[in-house]
């Protein structure tokens, strides 16, 4: 597969508003792409369109080789999505939540511990209800939930939000490792300086279209 994301003149509409207005972008395997742009330019919509959560109205859109206009659900099993929110069952204990996510993707119990250690979450917190964790600790659990599914395509929206400096270092390490093992990472963030060392490419959106691309030939 030469491209993981291949969008050509893609138009997507959400709530009657064109959130992507003729977007052209290609992302290759192993890239770490930093999506930039002001609020409301389409960063989140692009991530959601890649995940098949927003239907494509016009243009050509392929994600992981699947035509998103034919079946936008097809690539989801290979995608790890982390949005603004954490997607956590907050009544469950940390370990229980991860065990559920692990069971869904066929990961083992050992993978649960490995993922929680990888995000630096102290073992004493594994048997604590998620609702009692701080915002940063919850974000770490959310990242562990994505990590455990070993996605081929990581779609992250403001992944560093609420993380302390240690948490950010853990996350950056995870993203670099994922990319070096062949996965592709696309994340939206306003934190340019922090992410310069992580991203292999910077893409700026404006008005639902590509505006600047550091990886353009």
């Amino acid at each position, binding site marked *: 597969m030469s491209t993981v994301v291949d969008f050509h003149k893609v138009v997507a509409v959400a709530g009657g508003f064109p959130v992507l207005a003729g977007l052209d972008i290609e992302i290759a395997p192993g890239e770490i792409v930093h999506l930039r742009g002001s609020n409301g330019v389409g960063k989140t919509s692009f991530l959601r369109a890649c995940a098949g*959560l927003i239907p494509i109205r016009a243009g050509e859109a392929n994600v992981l080789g699947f035509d998103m206009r034919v079946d936008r659900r097809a690539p989801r*099993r290979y*995608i790890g*999505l982390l949005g603004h929110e*954490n997607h956590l069952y*907050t*009544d469950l*204990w940390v370990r229980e939540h991860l065990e559920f996510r692990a069971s*869904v993707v066929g990961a083992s119990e050992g993978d649960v511990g490995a993922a929680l250690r990888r995000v630096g979450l102290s073992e004493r917190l594994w048997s604590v209800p998620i609702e009692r964790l701080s915002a940063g600790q919850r974000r770490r659990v959310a990242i562990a939930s994505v990590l455990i599914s070993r996605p081929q395509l990581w779609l992250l929206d403001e992944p560093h939000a609420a993380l302390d400096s240690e948490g950010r270092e853990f996350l950056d390490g995870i993203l670099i490792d994922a990319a070096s093992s062949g996965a592709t990472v696309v994340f939206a963030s306003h934190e340019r300086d922090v992410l310069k060392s992580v991203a292999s490419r910077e893409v700026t959106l404006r008005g639902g279209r590509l505006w600047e691309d550091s990886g353009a030939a």
Partner: protein
Amino acid sequence: MLHEVLLVARKDLRVEWRSKVTIGQVAPLALLVLVVFAFAFDANARLLGLGAGGLFWVAVLFGGTLLIQRAFDLETDDGNFDAFRMSTIGAPSLFLGKSLGVFIQVVLLELVLGPGVALLYDVRIDDWFLLLAAALAGTVAFSVCGVLWGVMAAGVRVRATLLPLLLIPVLAPVLLAGSRAFETAFGVRAEAGWTWASVMFVIAAVHTAIGVGTFGFLLEEG
């Protein structure tokens, strides 16, 4: 598929076990409804005995609607609806798993309400077999209808008020059939209780088939 169904149901029940919403809040609230009915009928034993079947199902409808609401709040809080949609679990398994989770919680609710009805309304049971069959059919019908309509309301901002508005008219036939079947089981109505129980089994089967077939679409459009 069975593995996926059990996975979803077990997760929902584990959340319930941790939060104790069914036992700690919904069941006492539904019991209070039974008490309020007793007051409303001025503790008229004859009237309460005649209407016990219907009052039981009204209390189940009231409490069960809260449980269905809760079952989908789990999937929408903290942005979980996206994770629910992104799940690799097949849509039919999600539907059946959620339905099984709701079914078990409604059974728990009924186990609290049943003795409540017997105690408060002084009910005598003539036909245990019919009673249990009608309770099973009604609970299955309630669960699958609830999950089917629950997912339609799940993605909507005003779901807390929309769900009962959608659900109660759909569940009216279950309420009617359940009441009639229970009245026969209680010996206060000579009509064919088994026919009414069968009606609920048919409603359950039809909604299960619709749910299995359409849950994926409803999830996407929610």
